[in-house]
């Protein structure tokens, strides 16, 4: 790895702790600042004695910064605290649900890319043809369908009416391949369509930008046939901005799994998040939010590094973002 790339990676890596620190402050602040701390919210359902006991169990009487430091220490020890409602360590609760969310987010991103690459390519290469118009209309529809509504429709058609796919997930999702596919097919489609619509649009406009560059005309003037120019120059160079968008989308997918898990009753992090929010179980909420933020930052970071590796100009020095 030549020196500029190492330099660039170091610069990007060092930015992470700064942003992570800010993220932790935001997460902590949002949970603890409003109305004297989280425990008040459970007041309705518990006697004063239990509240007092909960307050000192979670050190809520200490000044805020002490609580924050305690929380960081806890994090350092790898424990995310214990759930108020479920009385279980949060770490294990998350660990058991993580695979579902990750698999769902990952598979829908893959689906999105698989749809978007050909669709974007064709609609750019054959601009203003019927294929382009079709891809644009599909993209717009994909963008505007609320993913939970699409989920509901899928359940009605494939689950209820045709009965091909199970409506509610069984206990162990990853037992057999067939079983996993059956359970995850509809949610992945529900989540993936919006993302594929987005990526198609980005790839199309990125390719159109590259088409207008001088070096594409020079390539044709060198005698390279249009097909070769389209594939090895225009498509390849247009992929770079798409990478950033796909990485960000996977981050978005993490967020959207919350609703999809709700619609398809999948036992993932998202559902746990919704339940903990409704039950005001703040240690769980706090930890899940932190997890989502860190996952998002890692994705963002890999996107920037990929950007640097592929685009020699960035490596040469010059800000990535």
């Amino acid at each position, binding site marked *: 790895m030549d020196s500029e790339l190492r330099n660039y990676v170091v610069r990007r890596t060092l*930015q992470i702790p700064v942003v992570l620190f800010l993220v932790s402050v935001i997460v902590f602040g949002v949970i603890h600042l409003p109305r004297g701390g989280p425990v008040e919210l459970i007041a309705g359902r518990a006697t004063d004695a239990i509240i007092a006991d909960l307050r000192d169990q979670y050190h809520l009487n200490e000044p805020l910064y002490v609580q924050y430091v305690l929380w960081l220490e806890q994090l350092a020890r790898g424990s995310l605290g214990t759930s108020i409602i479920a009385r279980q360590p949060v770490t294990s609760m998350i660990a058991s649900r993580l695979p579902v969310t990750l698999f769902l987010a990952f598979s829908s991103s893959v689906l999105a890319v698989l749809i978007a690459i050909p669709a974007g390519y064709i609609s750019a290469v054959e601009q203003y043809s019927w294929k382009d118009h079709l891809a644009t209309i599909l993209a717009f529809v994909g963008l505007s369908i609320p993913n*939970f509504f699409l989920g509901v429709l899928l359940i009605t058609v494939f689950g209820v009416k045709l009965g091909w796919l199970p409506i509610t997930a069984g206990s162990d999702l990853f037992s057999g391949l067939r079983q996993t596919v059956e359970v995850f097919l509809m949610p992945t489609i529900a989540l993936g369509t919006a993302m594929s619509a987005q990526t198609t649009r980005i790839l199309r406009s990125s390719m159109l930008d590259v088409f207008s560059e001088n070096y594409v005309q020079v390539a044709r003037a060198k005698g390279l046939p249009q097909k070769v120019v389209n594939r090895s120059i225009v498509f390849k160079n247009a992929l770079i901005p798409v990478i950033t968008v796909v990485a960000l989308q996977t981050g*978005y997918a993490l967020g959207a799994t919350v609703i999809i898990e709700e619609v398809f009753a999948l036992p993932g992090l998202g559902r746990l998040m919704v339940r903990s929010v409704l039950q005001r179980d703040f240690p769980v909420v706090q930890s899940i*939010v932190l997890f989502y933020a860190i996952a998002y930052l890692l994705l963002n970071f890999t996107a920037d590094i990929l950007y640097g590796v592929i685009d020699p100009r960035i490596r040469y020095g010059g800000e990535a973002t």
Partner: protein
Amino acid sequence: MSFANSLEKSGDVVVRLPFVERRHLRLVRELLTERKAAVSFVFLALLVFSAVFAPVIAPYDPTEPNYEESYASPSVDHPFGTDSFGRDILSRIIFAARISLYVGLGSVGFAMLVGIPMGLFAGYASPSRAETVIMRLMDALLAFPGIVLALTLVSILGSSVTNVVIALAVGYVPGFARIAHGATLSLKEEEFIMSAKAVGTPTRTIVSRYLLPNAAAPLIVQATLVFAFAILGEAGLSFLGVGAQPPTPSLGLMILSGKDYLSQSIWISLFPGLTIMAIVLSLNFLGDALRDVLDPKQETDRRIQ
């Protein structure tokens, strides 16, 4: 919904000064002649009109149960049918539109009010420490997928439409800040800012007459697109039961309530869903048309079409 920031990342529109034919007069004409944009414009105008005059326009009371007519399929007197409580779905949609518009305007407005000045300041003061702090803060805020952030805020502030507005708005602030920041940076390099200084134009006039109008184009486009995602966001949150609480009519809630009756009376969820789609679709078309009209780079290939 953090959808906006993934769009914003790609929507980092480098503001290229419009060197192609453009006059305000033309801008409106262009907008209306664009088929899709014209239809969307009319649809949205209708929507706003009906939302404002909902009590007058809605044929029935949206919250009054009427059990004899529950699950009625779409008919002459109930064009969209009735729900499990026998309430007319069309009237509920008209009233629900109020919520959607309120959330949309509220969150986009708030996000612009906070995000744009921060972005402009960071851009104008660049390179400075303040700029780094602001932009790193935006990166941190951006790290939260919108729905997660919204859920957390609502869990603390309680479930209500206003809290949904604030929750969504906080998610959109970084998007606007980054576009404003990028636009200001690239504009500062333009020579006409220096030429304004050379003829003695004071700084505040430079910002108001030079920076803002030229940075407006990408911000307006972003506003229409974010508006669409705010509506999706609100529907999502109420679908999770965290947004508007029954009986207030909200498109998300209506879809949720119809979820269990899909096999027999699908229209309970279908029509609210289609309404959301129509709103978001027309906002997207409007946003696209605005982008073409305001950013003349695309205009040339569109005109030759």
